[in-house]
């Protein structure tokens, strides 16, 4: 009588392990180096006139390598600019204060992310500092509009 009961217990145990294992698998596959916890990171802000469809948790990259994530997006109601909070891995705490933050697009139709270009200053960005030099997002419609405006004089001739 104990044997069938034992078999059931083992099966249930395996089942639960499999289920939890699946959850762990899914979590690890989606976490990776992007799971930066607050203790190992520091925060800087940047202001933009236009952020396009930049989303929370978008990557922050330097030379194309992800070193942080966008952690908060808010609007400054007085200056009418977007204020972006960047959480950067503490390993990269040598960013000069004249670093440039630009909103770039990944691929042709990819999502927006922040690309940092370091300057040459000797002082470095600390926690709660603000990045002074920013480039807003380029909206596709504006680009097309500009292109069409530039073309017009040629077609007249």
């Amino acid at each position: 009588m104990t044997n069938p009961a034992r078999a059931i217990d083992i099966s249930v145990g395996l089942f639960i392990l499999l289920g939890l294992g699946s959850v762990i698998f899914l979590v690890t596959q989606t976490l990776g180096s992007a799971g930066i916890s607050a203790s190992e990171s520091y925060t800087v802000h940047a202001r933009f006139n236009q952020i396009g469809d930049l989303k929370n948790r978008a990557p922050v990259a330097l030379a194309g390598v992800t070193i942080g994530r966008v952690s908060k997006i808010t609007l400054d109601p007085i200056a009418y600019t977007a204020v972006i909070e960047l959480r950067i891995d503490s390993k990269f705490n040598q960013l000069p204060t004249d670093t440039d933050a630009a909103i770039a697009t990944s691929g042709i139709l990819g999502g927006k992310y922040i690309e940092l270009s370091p300057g040459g200053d000797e002082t470095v960005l600390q926690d709660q500092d603000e990045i002074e030099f920013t480039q807003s997002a380029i909206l596709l419609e504006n680009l097309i509009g500009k292109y069409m405006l530039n073309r017009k004089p040629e077609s007249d001739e």
Partner: protein
Amino acid sequence: MITALRDCWFSFSQFAATFGGFQMFSFRLLPYLPRAVLRPRLITEQIYSVGALSLVLIMFGGLFVGMVLALQSYNTLVEFGQTDSLGAFASEALVRELGPVVATLLFAGRAGSAVASEVGLMRATDQIAAMELMAVDPIQRVVVPRFIAGVISVPLLAAIFSTMGVLGAYLVGVHLLGVDAGAFWSQIQDRVDVYEDIGSGIFKSFVFGVSASLMGVFEGYYAPPTAAGVSRAATRTVVITSVWILLLDFVLTSFTLPGT
């Protein structure tokens, strides 16, 4: 014409009555839950019957759904040159939607109907009445362990389904369609969010699990004690659970999707 209308009204009022009875039943179960923890053996047996035995179905289902999802989305993504996102796209769909929903639908079909017919049969063969006469509360002994087992099993099954789906998408995407393996996994890492996507998936599967289990035991417990009654209870369980899960999914999705 009048009879048709009257029939419609009748079936609607029946539905309302059943729904009301269902709510009452759910509340009736609540006080039994704490004591049920004292009989882990009963719950374990039910987890085996309801969860472990559904594994094959869920794993195959997940694998094939993942594979089809990869094939289907590749079709669309290749037009935009975004095939690298295949992994992320498939994973997000699985973890957020397909895992919880399809796993619960499969669960309702296999385990929900089994529980309904089991409990219904116990009623039809006087086993429930015998228990009552032996001063054993049948709700405590028969219904609650099955309910708890379902609530525990469905989220686990949904997770297993999603995982198998991702693996299926990987097999088809990388080995069949030539998507880059590195891109596959890294896109998942970049785009699928632990808290939002996996979190909402787990939340959904938990809610679905409660619903599916509740409906199975309810239909079985109140099934008319005849052979026809029991089989109808089993069928009704699948139908009612499926409709409710799909409805609930819409409601939950519209609340949990960012930007809505």
